[in-house]
């Protein structure tokens, strides 16, 4: 049996280096912002309890990851059992927007989720506090193109945030929590409290056991 409680939701934040993944997590969890966050190497998580939907308390376990491409292959160690994936880009950095697709693909390859077709992703464009002149020109159109073409035509929720000024961060994570909860419930319904290969492997034995005690 998984030791994870059902109300623990695992969220992975991905995106290019410097888009503000650590800042988003820190703003949400600790309500603070600093220009001095160290570059993230490897991956680490923070947890926060929030109340969503009908007074349902959930614990969000938010994983902050390294942005440099070099570290991507490590994801396989951290993405296991994720309930929601946040794809981040920097509204002043077009490359980070264009890379969303590859982050999504990489996540699906490495996390080995049971429902890649409808696994919950959410897109966050961070740094909206920056001067308009520095933002990606015709961002909405480009974003639309990306969400409607490259990402398999799926319409993921998009939030534009500022981790610095705490704009929309709370709202984005509330949606993240709801989506993650749905995913968790879906998994609970389809295969006990498990959602990935590793737990399936354990289930085999549980199967043998449960039919064994049916007599």
């Amino acid at each position, binding site marked *: 049996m998984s030791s994870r409680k059902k109300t623990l939701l695992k969220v992975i934040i991905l995106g290019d280096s410097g888009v503000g993944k650590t800042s988003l997590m820190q703003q949400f969890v600790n309500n603070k912002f600093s220009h001095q966050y*160290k570059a993230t190497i490897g991956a680490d998580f923070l947890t926060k309890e929030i109340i969503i939907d009908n007074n349902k308390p959930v614990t969000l376990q938010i994983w902050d990851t390294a942005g440099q491409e070099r570290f991507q292959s490590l994801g396989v160690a951290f993405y296991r059992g994720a309930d929601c994936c946040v794809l981040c880009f920097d509204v002043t950095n077009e490359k980070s927007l264009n890379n969303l697709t590859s982050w999504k693909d990489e996540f699906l390859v490495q996390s080995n989720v049971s429902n890649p077709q409808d696994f919950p992703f959410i897109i966050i464009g961070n740094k909206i506090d920056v001067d308009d002149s520095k933002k990606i020109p015709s961002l909405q159109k480009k974003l639309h193109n990306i969400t409607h073409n490259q990402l398999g035509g799926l319409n993921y929720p998009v939030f534009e945030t500022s981790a610095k000024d705490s704009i929309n961060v709370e709202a984005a994570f509330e949606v993240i929590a709801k989506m993650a909860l749905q995913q968790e419930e879906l998994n609970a319904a389809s295969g006990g409290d498990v959602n990935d290969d590793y737990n399936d492997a354990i289930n085999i034995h549980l199967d043998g056991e449960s039919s064994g005690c049916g007599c």
Partner: protein
Amino acid sequence: MDSDTLGKSLYKNEELPLNDNIRGLKAKAIREATQRNTNSDEILELLSELSRSTDGLINNELRSKVWPVLLGIEDKTKSNTSEGSLLDTNGGLFTNASPFLDELNCIDLPPHKDEDQVKLDIQRSFTILNHIQSLQHPPYFPSENSYTTIVSPSDVQNLKKYLSNLIIKLLRKYPCLNYYQGYHDIASVILLVCYIPGNDTEDKEKTENDNEYDINEELAFKILEKITLFHLRDYMVHDIALSIDHLRLIPTLLENLDIELFELIKQTSNCYVQSDGLYYDYKFYQGISSILTMFSHDLSNLTQILTVWDFSLSYNSVLINMYLYTSALLIFKNRIFEKCNVEEQDREDLDYEDIDSDLVHNAISPTNLFDSLSDVDLIKILNKTRNIVQDFPMDKLTNCADTFANWFSEYNKSSVLLNTSNLYIPKREKFTKYRNLIINTIGDDPIELTKLVDLQDSEISRQTSDDLAFQHKILLQQEELNNSIMTDTSAGQSDMFASDTNTLHTSLSIHRITSSMLFKKLFSREDANEDDKKVIRRRKDSWVSRNIYKISITIGFIGILVHFLLKNNPQYQNLLSKLFNGGRNAIPIGKLSPLVILNYEPINTITSELSTIGDEIFGDIGNAFNEMFCFIKESEMVNSGISIGQVGLGNLKNTIYGFTT
């Protein structure tokens, strides 16, 4: 000279940082040593010893003298890499990067592919200077400790320019290297050590353009160059898997040092969990930031970072960092187990299966490990490191053949651990043997290094593809297992008992096949370079297991016979249900974790009850059955530590144990 006599004993305070007096003496001893002939082995060893004893090299003035000696940096006359002033104090950090690259003499060189990443990381560098408390140096050397004056925001901006110069210059000089996040932490530590106090005044901030403080950039570059090419090279090849190979040595050490921690850490491995404990790949991702940055990313106190670097550089091998991380895990063992909520009993029983692997991840991560690390703790960690590096050399580890020897001697022969950063060959030998890696003129083609890195790339990609193939095989075998069991359970529904027994049997036997295939696969590689002694031992083992195998087949056969004969006997059905209800705990044997404490009681019960029924109805078979058990009881199997109840599972268990030990 008193430096010699003081060197060995006085500065090795077991528990506490040195007091002011002894610090003063130690600084004097270090200074005197640097004034002697640093080319002699004797002085090199003395300086190494002074660096790794308590409080390291005391201050940065001494560090900037001793580190080059420890690294074997040749004291040549100035090369043309250092012409002109490299400091540009005009304008912002990146908007006019080209002017300083002009002065760097490397503007003609094509930009390195990773320069964008460097820029991003430099924006986030020197965060450590915010920890002003770590910069307020002890009062004993006021004249030598003047960082406190360089923490104004504009000073940090200046340092960032220096840092950018330093890293970009190195990358352009050696384009075959790949930059990684964390390398900027390495470079910034070096930069701080090469800071020259100058004639500081109170109003430095106003007069920053007058260059009142300076950084010995030439020295900083030479130190960075040497550390990079000789020690961090493995982390800068294309594939990060080679860095992971270094990290794998941490659990490798733990397996020899502390089985409880080792088993705990296993729980964070996908591979281990997915293969139901059959295969553990030793991949230890948690320590990556510490290893890649020589702890400078994870320690929040600059003085502690510098002490760790003194210690680490004195060994002239990055392997020491693996020992150091292992020591930290050992020192904080209790705290780690507390964080993971492991109960005392479970901890002793090595029963960690129900532990949340994310909790373990957190507990063994550097953020937790080094959070608010006290100076006393650091001293303990360093002393522990000294001890284990001496007592547990890599090539003497019991698991060496499957680990270090396999990953490095077999696959990555060109790794720094086997040449430039080899802990086990004399420093001087390394300095001279590999000096051609470093080129003197910027812009020249670094042929030697490029060749070496190319070779390393091909070595690690061979390992990566072999590993992938191996993992794929495991997955396939598990899938096979899935399928066969599914078929079994769906087909056998009509006869419940039969199908249950079948499922159990099948799952066990398939596991046996899987595990022995894995076993073979793993050991075939090891067999190649294993010594004769081991082969003999294995032969003995296989004799035992062959015999168990015969016996278990016999018992299995008799069991099946009895089962079919008794199928409709109510007493027997009662017995069976007892087995399957009572034996529920025993069934997870199928999970094949060698840690599971098998519960044999139901099996023992059934054997006795079975023989009773057997006596009643089939006296002869029953007698034979009992005799068989008696025979086994008296036979060698018992002597070799296998209890009677295990016999049916003996082969399986033997395989598993053989597999893990």
